[in-house]
């Protein structure tokens, strides 16, 4: 049977090999062994070397592995990444808009776009969830939330 290229393991192996190289290069700049014993570079150098060796094994073995018959479901991955992107945007908006507004926007996006609920229902869920968080955390429990231009 023909052996083909295992792309996911190959590329993740390369990324980890790059990380291992970074760890080794950094660790070599710090003291390895000093008069008082091992320095700050001792432990990172060894796990960096181990990571480089193992990522090399992963990259090489992926080249010999049979290609998986399993199809990559890009539509499903796209849905997850869309939610992650929305989360990242709402995190970036925490400073200017505050938690309540950015969380309401995130909830609205998930309900209206990802689950295709009616806009009115999505807006109601977003408003109610954000209000519940505000009442529960800053008001009832005294846990601070990021505040933005609106003051909450």
């Amino acid at each position: 049977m023909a052996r083909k290229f295992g792309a996911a393991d190959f590329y993740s192996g390369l990324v980890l090999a790059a990380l291992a190289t970074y760890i080794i290069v950094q660790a070599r700049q710090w003291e390895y062994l000093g008069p008082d014993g091992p320095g700050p570079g001792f432990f990172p150098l060894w796990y960096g070397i181990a990571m480089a060796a193992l990522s090399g094994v992963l990259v090489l073995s992926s080249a010999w592995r049979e290609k998986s018959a399993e199809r990559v479901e890009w539509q499903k991955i796209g849905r997850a990444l869309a939610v992650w992107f929305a989360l990242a945007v709402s995190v970036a908006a925490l400073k200017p808009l505050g938690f309540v507004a950015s969380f309401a926007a995130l909830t609205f996006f998930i309900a209206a776009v990802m689950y295709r609920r009616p806009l009115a229902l999505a807006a109601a869920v977003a408003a109610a969830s954000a209000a519940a968080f505000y009442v529960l955390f800053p008001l009832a429990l005294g846990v601070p939330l990021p505040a933005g231009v609106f003051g909450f």
Partner: protein
Amino acid sequence: MEILAGLMQGFAVALQPANLLWCLVGVVLGTVVGIMPGLGPPATIAMLLPLTFLMNPAGAMIMLAGIYYGAKYGGSTTSILLNVPGESASVVTCLDGYQMARQGRAGAALGIAAIASFIAGTVGVLGLMLVAPPLAKVALSFSSPEYFALMALGLAMVVLLAGRSMVKALLAMLAGLWIAGIGTDLFSTTSRFTFGRMELLSGVDFVVVAIGVFAIAEVLANMEAREETRLLPVPKGLRNLLPTVQDLKDCRFAFANGSVVGFLIGVLPGAGSTIASFISYGLEKAVSRRRERFGTGVVEGVAAPEGVNNSETGGALVPLLTLGIPGSGTTAVLLAALVLWGFKPGPLFIPENPALFWGLVASMYIGNVMLLILNLPLVPAFAQVLRAPAFVLYPVILGISIVGVYSASGSLFDVALLAAFGLLGYVMRKLDYPAAPLILGLVLGGAMERALRQSLMMSEGSLSILVARPISAVMLSLALLILLIPLFTKVNAWRLRALDS
């Protein structure tokens, strides 16, 4: 006598009204979390951890432990009613539990799951109570080389059983060690891997990584599909949930099997309740007179795995509390909780904090009784949790995650890191990199480096100290043997079969 005195002290702590309340909150939350497929105890405990900083540590520990073992009770409900495990430890329960439900015996299956969980859970706590104090005394003789070797052995066990590819599990563990190394080196005050960011000088908060990799990644994975759950009807009324006398007779061996196997496997780092439940189910099938009927809805097929995953909880707390070595993602989060509250899990934990240890043990006895009472009559009510709409539930989980991280540090940089680790956790899932070794590497990384450097200071730089001391030599040899298992074809084939099943 010492144990009895400790237990009395523990009940004095656990029976305080506030601690009883936290125990109830923990077991109810645990049951709910166990019922919901896709939200596990590590994610829940990690999310709630920052909110416990203002609590009394005893109450907080009692609540978090309640979530841990309560989830094992809840997991069976989803397995039996939906044929979907609510928790990874309840996968095996689907085999016979769902078949019983299809035959109109959902009540008996749920009832026997609750009774088996109660019996084995109680035996697990008994084991914890009897084994932990003497083990802690033995561990008092451990020095830095033994600690380094013990942590290496623990990590090797987790790597062995974390996933199909040991290379990927090792890489995840090494990535965890690297994340643990970010920040200022306390021996030399050198800043390491900080990318010039002031925010990273104090390191990456464990809470940020744990919530990102467990909770955010779980939400992202669940967002892939827009599935509706189809619930089988749950009989109402207590009478329908009680198994028959014949059911109880049929489960006699399963109760004992689940109790003993669960505790023993729980003590071993890395194995965890999922593997324990498969072993217990296999053992039950092997000794049963009606083994050919397993998988068609026999009551022992529910009792054995449900018992084992509760008994395992008591076992898993033994190495955590006496040696400071967690054996799974959930116990790693519990270890981080103890450290964040200012405790040092290890041989001195029990002598220095008897009220906390014995209070926890006593609360687990009480929590198991609470769970039995809650799970028999209230299963129909708990099952309604499955009707919570996903478009409400998932944003709430994301919101609690953000609040948890922000409340712990007050830093928006940490919230941004949370999103990054959430993406990392999701990518790891998609590429089959297990999360548990990463989390354990992160939790143990600092202590492991410290133990290694202290050992080498003791020996003036000679690595021979690690093998010159017998206990450390044995543990390091075992760790090496475990890591070489892929080279032994037959043993590795057994490992892969176990993981596949």
